[in-house]
C-alpha cells in the first residue's frame, strides 16, 4: 500500500500580532489582560491599574506604542501635502519639532488627530490612531511627494512620569536635558527621542527601527531600576490622558471615515480646537465647511467638566436645569491626583458655549445590589485638570 502523504494543514495566521516588545511585556504581566490595538497585542493592565497610574504620576513608566500608525511623507511637496491635510499651518513647525495636528474631510469633520514630526521641509512623520494610508495617498495626488507606511518599520515606547528624564540620563541619553516640550532629535544613530506624550506630565517617546525595540527596552529597563520605572497598560494611561484633557479617537470623537451613521462627525471647532484651524494659510481640506463655523458657532461643544461626588460618570447623560437633556460624558474617571470626579463631555450648542450653568449629570449607583439614580451638579472647566510645571521645565529636574 502506498504511503499517504501527510499534509500539515496551515492556515493564514489569525488573531492579534505581537509587537517587538510583546515578549518583554508578557514576561512581566501578572494580569494577562490584553487588548487589540491596530491589530497588535497591547496590555490593558500588566499589574494593577492603581500601581500603574501612580507610577505615571510619581515615578516613570514605559508603554509600548509600537502599534501606532506611522507614515513618512517625503519629497519636494511634503510640506504642501501636509498643509493640505491638516488644519494648522505646518510651515510654522520648525525642523526638529513636533506638532499636534488634526485633519478633516470636506465637511470639516475630524478624520483623526495625531502628532507630526518634522525632520525637514521635505521629510515628515505622521503618527495617528487610524489607518490613513489611502487617505494620505489621495491627499498627495497631484503633488511631488511620497507616502510610506512605516507602521511596522518603526517601533516606539512612551516613557512618562516625573523621573523619566532621570531614567534617560541613567540610560546614557545625556543630550536630552536641553530638549524642550515638542522637541525631537536623533540622540544616537537610529534612536530618536521626542519630548511628547499622552499624560500631560514630563515624558518622552523614543523611536527606533522595529528590530531594535527590545534592545532599547532592556537598556531603559536596566537604567530605570532605582527611578521606580514600571511598565504600564492602556487603562492607567487613559486615566492620565483624561486628567490632561486629551481627546481620544473613537471615544471623545468618532473618526468620520469610520463612522457608519449620519451626523456622527465633529469639527475641530466643536471639539474645542478652534485655535488649531488656521484659515489664513490657504486652502486645506474642509476649510470652506469650517469657515461656516468660524467664530465658535459649532453645533456641539466638547468640554471638561467636574462632576460632584466620586462615582466615575463615563457615559452619563447631562441635563440643563435637571430637565432638558443636553449632552453626555464621553470619558469620565475619578482623578486620584486631583481628588475630583473629572470627565470630558459633549454638549449640544448653545449649552457648553453660552449656557454653562445649571448643568447636571445623571449617575447610576449600585449600593450593594440596589441601583439608584442621582442628579449631581456639573461644573465646566476651561483648563486641563492636571497641570504641573515639571511637565514643561527645561532642563527637567530629577525627582
Amino acid at each position, binding site marked *: 500500500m502506498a504511503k499517504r502523504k501527510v499534509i500539515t494543514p496551515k492556515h493564514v495566521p489569525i488573531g492579534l500580532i505581537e509587537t517587538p516588545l510583546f515578549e518583554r511585556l508578557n514576561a512581566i504581566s501578572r494580569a494577562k489582560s490584553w487588548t487589540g490595538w491596530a491589530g497588535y497585542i497591547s496590555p490593558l493592565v500588566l499589574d494593577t491599574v492603581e500601581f500603574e497610574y501612580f507610577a505615571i504620576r510619581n515615578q516613570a513608566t514605559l508603554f509600548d506604542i509600537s502599534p501606532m500608525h506611522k507614515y513618512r511623507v517625503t519629497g519636494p511637496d511634503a510640506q504642501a501635502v501636509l498643509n*493640505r491635510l491638516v488644519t494648522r499651518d505646518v510651515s510654522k513647525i520648525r525642523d526638529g519639532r513636533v506638532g499636534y495636528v488634526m485633519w478633516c*474631510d*470636506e465637511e470639516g469633520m475630524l478624520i483623526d488627530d495625531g502628532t507630526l514630526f518634522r525632520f525637514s521641509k521635505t521629510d515628515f512623520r505622521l503618527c495617528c490612531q487610524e489607518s490613513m494610508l489611502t487617505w494620505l495617498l*489621495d491627499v498627495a*495626488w*497631484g503633488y511631488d511627494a511620497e507616502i510610506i507606511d512605516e507602521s511596522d518599520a518603526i517601533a516606539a515606547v512612551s516613557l512618562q512620569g516625573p523621573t523619566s528624564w532621570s531614567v534617560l540620563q541613567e540610560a546614557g541619553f545625556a543630550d536630552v536635558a536641553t530638549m524642550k516640550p515638542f522637541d525631537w532629535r536623533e540622540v544616537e544613530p537610529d534612536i530618536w527621542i521626542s519630548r511628547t506624550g499622552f499624560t500631560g506630565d514630563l515624558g518622552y517617546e523614543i523611536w527606533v527601527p522595529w528590530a531594535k525595540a527590545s534592545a532599547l527596552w532592556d537598556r531603559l529597563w536596566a537604567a530605570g531600576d532605582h527611578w521606580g520605572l514600571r511598565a504600564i497598560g492602556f487603562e492607567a494611561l487613559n486615566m492620565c490622558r483624561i486628567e490632561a484633557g486629551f481627546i481620544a479617537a473613537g471615544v471623545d470623537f468618532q473618526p468620520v471615515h469610520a463612522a457608519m451613521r449620519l451626523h456622527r462627525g465633529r469639527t475641530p471647532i466643536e471639539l474645542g480646537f478652534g485655535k488649531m484651524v488656521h484659515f489664513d494659510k490657504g*486652502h486645506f481640506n474642509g476649510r470652506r465647511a469650517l469657515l461656516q463655523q468660524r467664530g465658535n458657532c459649532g453645533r456641539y461643544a466638547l468640554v471638561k467638566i467636574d462632576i460632584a461626588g466620586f462615582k466615575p460618570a463615563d457615559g452619563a447623560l447631562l441635563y440643563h436645569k435637571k430637565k432638558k437633556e443636553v449632552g453626555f460624558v464621553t470619558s469620565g474617571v475619578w482623578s486620584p491626583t486631583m481628588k475630583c470626579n473629572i470627565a470630558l463631555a459633549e454638549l449640544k450648542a448653545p449649552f457648553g458655549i453660552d449656557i454653562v450653568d445649571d448643568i447636571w449629570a445623571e449617575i447610576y449607583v449600585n449600593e450593594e445590589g440596589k441601583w439608584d439614580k442621582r442628579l449631581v451638579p456639573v461644573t465646566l472647566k476651561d483648563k486641563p485638570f492636571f497641570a504641573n510645571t515639571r511637565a514643561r521645565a527645561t532642563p527637567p529636574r530629577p525627582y
Partner: protein
Amino acid sequence: MSGNRFDAIVIGAGHNGLTAAATLAAQGKSVCVLERDGRIGGMSKTVDLDGAQVPEIAHLLYNLNPSVAKSLGLQLDTRALHTVALSPDGNHVVINDGSAVFADGSAHPDAQAFTALYVRLTKFARLLGQLADGPPPALSGGVLHVATLGELAKLGKLGWGLKRLGKKDMRELLRVVLSNAFDLVLDEISDGPLAGALTADAVRGGYAGPRSPGTVFSLMYRLGNGGTVTLPMGGMGAVANAFESVARSRGVDIRTGVQIERLVIADDRVQGVLLIDGTTLHADAVLSSAGGMQTMRIAGVASFDVEAVRRMRNLRNKGTTAKVNFVLSSTPTFTGLSAEQSAGRLLISPSARDVERAFNPAKYGEMSPAPLIEAVIPSLSDPSLAPAGTHILSAVVSYAPYALDGGWTKKARAQLLDSVIQTLDQYSPGIGALVSTSQVLTPVDIETMTGAPGGHWHHAEMGIDQILTVRPANMVSRYAFGVGGLYLCGASAHPGGDVMGAAGRNAAMQVIKDGVLG
C-alpha cells in the same frame, strides 16, 4: 469691450460656453470668452475637407434646448430629417415622426407597437425634460429654508406632471426609467433594424450597450425634445455661428487661439485668468465649459478638497465614438432606398443584439469589427456644401474606444476606416470606390481638438450615477465648483451633453443668482 477687466470670463467657445456668455451678457454683464482653438464652435464646426464643407464632429441637432433657443433668439435654418434603419436584407425601415414603414412603402408588422412605444417615451422624456431647464433639485438647505421652497415647487411641478400621466403611465415610467433599453424595446417589438435603431440611439456616444442599466434614461434624454432630428442648413458651423453672433451682438468679447496658463485665485476666490503669454484677464467669475478635471487642473488641484479631486479623477468619461468624414466623387446609392430616402439619417444597427455585440469589444479595448454607424449625407439636402457632383458623407461610428489596446496607431486608424467603408459597402455597393478623401477622428483626436475629456461627447458618461444631483459628481451639481466664483458650464454639468446649450444657460443663471458678480 476693450481692456482686460470683465464681469465674467467663459472658458471654451463651444455652444455651452457661448450660451453662458450670451446669457450673462443679456443681464448687462461684460463677458469675455476664451477659446484655445483658432475657431469657435467646439464640437459643432464645419471644416473644409478637400473643397467640401463637412461637419467635423457633431452633424445633427437632436436636442437644442427650446428655452435656450428662445432666450438667445437663435436664428437657425434647419431641416427635419427622417431616419432610415438599414437592413442587411434590403428591407429598410423608414422612421418619421414616430411612425415606421418599410422603405418600399409596405407596412411594418411592428408599426403600431413602435408608435405606441415612441409616443410613451417622448411623453416621459418631455416630462423629465423640464428638469433640464434649471439646476438639479437640491433640498440640502432644509425644508424651512427659503431657497428650498423654490426647489420644492420645482419638484412639486414634476410630481404634478407625473400624477397627470395617469396611474398606468406613471407606473410604467417608474418601472422603466432605470432599466435597460434592450429589454424595454424588445418587450414591445421584435428584434431587427427598427429595434436596432432605437437601442443604438439609446447608447450612441456613451460607454454602454443596450443591456447596460440606465440606457432607457439615455434614450429618453435623446428624445427630450420630441425626438426630432434636424439638419442645420449651412452645416453645423452655422449653428456655432448663430450662437456666436448672438453672443457678439450682446457685446461678448470672444477671443480665439488663446491658451490659459492658470486661473488667478486669491483668498479662495477667482480673480481672473492668466494666459500663457503672460496677460492677466480680470473677472469676478470664471465659467468653464471644460471637463471637471481639466477645470481643476487650471485652477490648481490644491484649491479643491481631496474628496472633490477624487470624484473628478474617477469620473466616467471613456469616449467610444469616432467620427469618419468622407468626400465622395459622385452621388452614392443605397440599395433599396430612393434618392430622397438616402438624404435621411441612415442607421446601421441591424438589431438590438448586434448593437450589444458591437459594444462587447469596447469593454476589452478593441474596436467593433461590425461598427454601428449613424450616417448622413448633408450635401443631398444642402448642395452648397460640396462642389457640384460631389457629396459628403458624415459618419458617427461606434464603438471605437478611447483607450484602444495598442493605441490609435496609423494602422488602427486605417483598420477603423476600412471597417466603416466595408460596413457602408454592404448597403451601398461600390461606395468605397467613390471615396476621394476621408478623415478619421478617434476619441483621442476629439479630446485633443476640443478638450472633451476622453473624447466623450458628453464630457462625462450620462449614467445614473452621473446625472441630475450627482452630475458630474456629488457636491458640485449646481455649477459652483469649489473656489468662489468658479463655475462649470459645459456638458459635464447638468443636464449634460448634446448640442443643447442648457448647461451653459443654467450655469449663467446660477452665477447671477449667487450674486458673485455684485
